């Protein structure tokens, strides 16, 4: 029984994931070895990612792959089981003012008694501050954001009277109103018509031209090469990440969508049960 002993952190074997990405302090988003669990069941294993600045980045993967979870964990909406996230080398609460967020459309009740302008103005609340009302200049800024997404004439429309694509644009306008350098968008293209899709892509390209970085959860593989510069292929862990040209390959897509991870899911279930005791 002879053994070959190597020191623990040996060279990675061929075939396994390449070098750990360098974490640069200039990167708008740096995720280090992040694991996220929902109800103690791991849904994201050991995510490591560095976003290059000033790019449009897509996160794609099958249902249940943890795409939304990745964004939410970065933003602190969902607790991390382990790992760290840094924005320009700083923790979230220091970098907050430079970050914008567009949640999924389904996450709100669109029958809420507010107009499109009111919703967009919510993006300015941080700048307005506690207890102070929304003044004319803030409303004007909000209106400008609405016009950028082509919704200027709907400013005073009640949000329940807007179509799905219009509602999506209002959410986008709200994120723009936050005047950020890094944007997270959760399924901005879900369920929108062609016109809205064109409008949103236009806004994304404008943002890139202005120097911002945009991370987008995207579900339509067809349009990834056309709309995005970088892509993260995600299926409970990062399968591959990098420029679209090199990473968005058939092999990688097969690995992402191939569904060979039943054992990992079983293991995740076991971890959950062990930790939670059958709740």
């Amino acid at each position, binding site marked *: 029984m002879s053994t070959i002993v190597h020191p623990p952190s040996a060279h990675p074997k061929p075939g396994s994931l390449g070098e750990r990405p360098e974490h640069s302090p200039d990167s708008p988003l740096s995720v280090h070895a992040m694991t996220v669990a929902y109800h103690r069941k791991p849904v994201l294993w050991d995510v490591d990612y560095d976003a290059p600045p000033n790019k449009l980045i897509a996160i794609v993967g099958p249902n249940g792959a943890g795409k939304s979870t990745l964004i*939410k964990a970065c*933003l*602190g*909406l969902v607790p991390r089981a382990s790992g760290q996230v840094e924005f320009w080398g700083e923790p979230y*609460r220091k970098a*907050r*003012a430079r*970050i914008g*967020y567009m*949640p999924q459309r389904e*996450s*709100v*009740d669109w029958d*809420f*008694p*507010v*107009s499109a302008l*009111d*919703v967009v103005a*919510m*993006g300015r*609340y*941080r700048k*307005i501050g*506690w*207890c102070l*009302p*929304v003044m004319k200049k803030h409303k004007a800024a909000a209106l400008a954001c609405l016009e950028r997404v082509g919704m200027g004439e709907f400013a005073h429309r*009640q949000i*329940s009277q807007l179509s799905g694509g219009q509602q999506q644009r209002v959410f986008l306008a*709200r994120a723009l109103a*936050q005047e950020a350098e890094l944007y997270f968008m959760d399924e901005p293209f879900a369920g929108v018509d*062609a*016109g809205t899709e064109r409008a949103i892509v236009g806004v994304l390209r404008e943002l890139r031209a202005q120097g911002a970085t945009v991370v987008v959860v995207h579900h339509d593989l067809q349009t990834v090469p056309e709309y995005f510069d970088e892509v993260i292929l995600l299926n409970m862990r990062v399968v591959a990440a990098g420029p679209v040209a090199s990473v968005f390959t058939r092999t990688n897509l097969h690995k992402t969508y191939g569904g060979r991870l039943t054992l990992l899911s079983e293991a995740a279930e076991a971890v959950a049960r062990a930790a939670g005791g059958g*709740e």
Partner: protein
Amino acid sequence: MPDLAELLDVLTFRAGFNTSLVVAGTALLGLAAGVVGVFALLRQRALMADALSHATLPGIAIAFLAAGALGAQGRTLPVLLIGGAISGVLGVVCVQAMLRHTRLREDAAIGIVLSVFFGVGIVALSYIQAHAPAGSAGLTRFIYGQAATMQPSDVRLMGTIAAIAILCTLLLLKEFALVCFNDAFAKVDGWPISFIDLAMMALVVLVTVAGLQAVGLILVVALLIIPPVAARFWTDRLWALVLLAGGLGALSGYLGSVLSALLPRQPAGAVIVLTAGAIFAVSMIFAPARGVLASSIRRLRLRLRIAGEHLLEAAHDENAVELTPDRIGRVARLRGWSSPFRILVLASLRRQGLTRTAPSGLVLTAPGVDRGAQVSRKHALWAQYLISYADVAPSHVDWSVDQVEHVLSPALVAELESKLASRGITVPPPPSTHGANA
């Protein structure tokens, strides 16, 4: 039965000091409850307020006993209310704890806290009553309310609480709206949502505790829920909602206590809640924005327009300009119109100037012919689209076209035209007889 003079006296605060006190106090309570209740409603925590109010009972009884044990006069209102507030908040804490640490759901947790705390309160009350320490007689008034015995100090307290509640709500209006609408966004943006939720809950506690005396703990939740729900039927704008909810709450309090003053023996709390209920019913039925009647009328108008367009289209497709009884009957049978509906459709067409009565019968006017042609074209466009793009078998096209052709907007029509054009299919626009396009 009270006469008109009496009624006017009460309405204008001239019917005696006590009555005026009650009317003023309950109006203020209604105002505060309406304003605060808007956000409980929008945050979907309406029934948490119910649990809260029932959970105040043990606190009141224990505060009474504790105050008595410490030698103080147990019956002072602030002491009792503070006790009520503490146990009410404890109840809410228990609900949250149950949600976090057990598999029980929110409805069960609220029901459990509501009933068990209330039971503890009843036991405590019965203990107090059996041993009859001085001043315990009035404790049960917190259950049903006894607005009629309001003192000036009580009204002052009510007024102060109302002012605090309204001021805080106005100051934090946008923060409350933000958290109620999209708390994830608020959290990402850096707002402390636990603190904001806590502020909302504190205001609910404040108003609940203030209302205990007037309408009792079982019914105070009514003042928190009913005016905002009623106000929602009248407006879609948040500012207006808050103002209106406060107004309707004040109105319920005002009218309710006026009525109860005029009809002695009727417990004021119950009358106030019934007044609120009546206001709710009127709002739900008659409010122009979201009321049932207005919605039904809008729906009817839409159905009439569509039905009228079917008639016009039928005439156009047969290259005719008369709406003969035969033609009308055919369409009516096909679409299952009742006779009254048929009459309404014809009347609507006439009213819109799309038909007129000629010696030969019902005839399409020029605009009517135009409209018929346009609808017919939209029909053709959509049918073509379904066949060419959506691979729908031609035999199945008619049903969905029927629904869609009436609601295609000009933008959509343009998009259809361009899509079909890219496949070399055109459906020529109808010649306009009058130059008027829909």
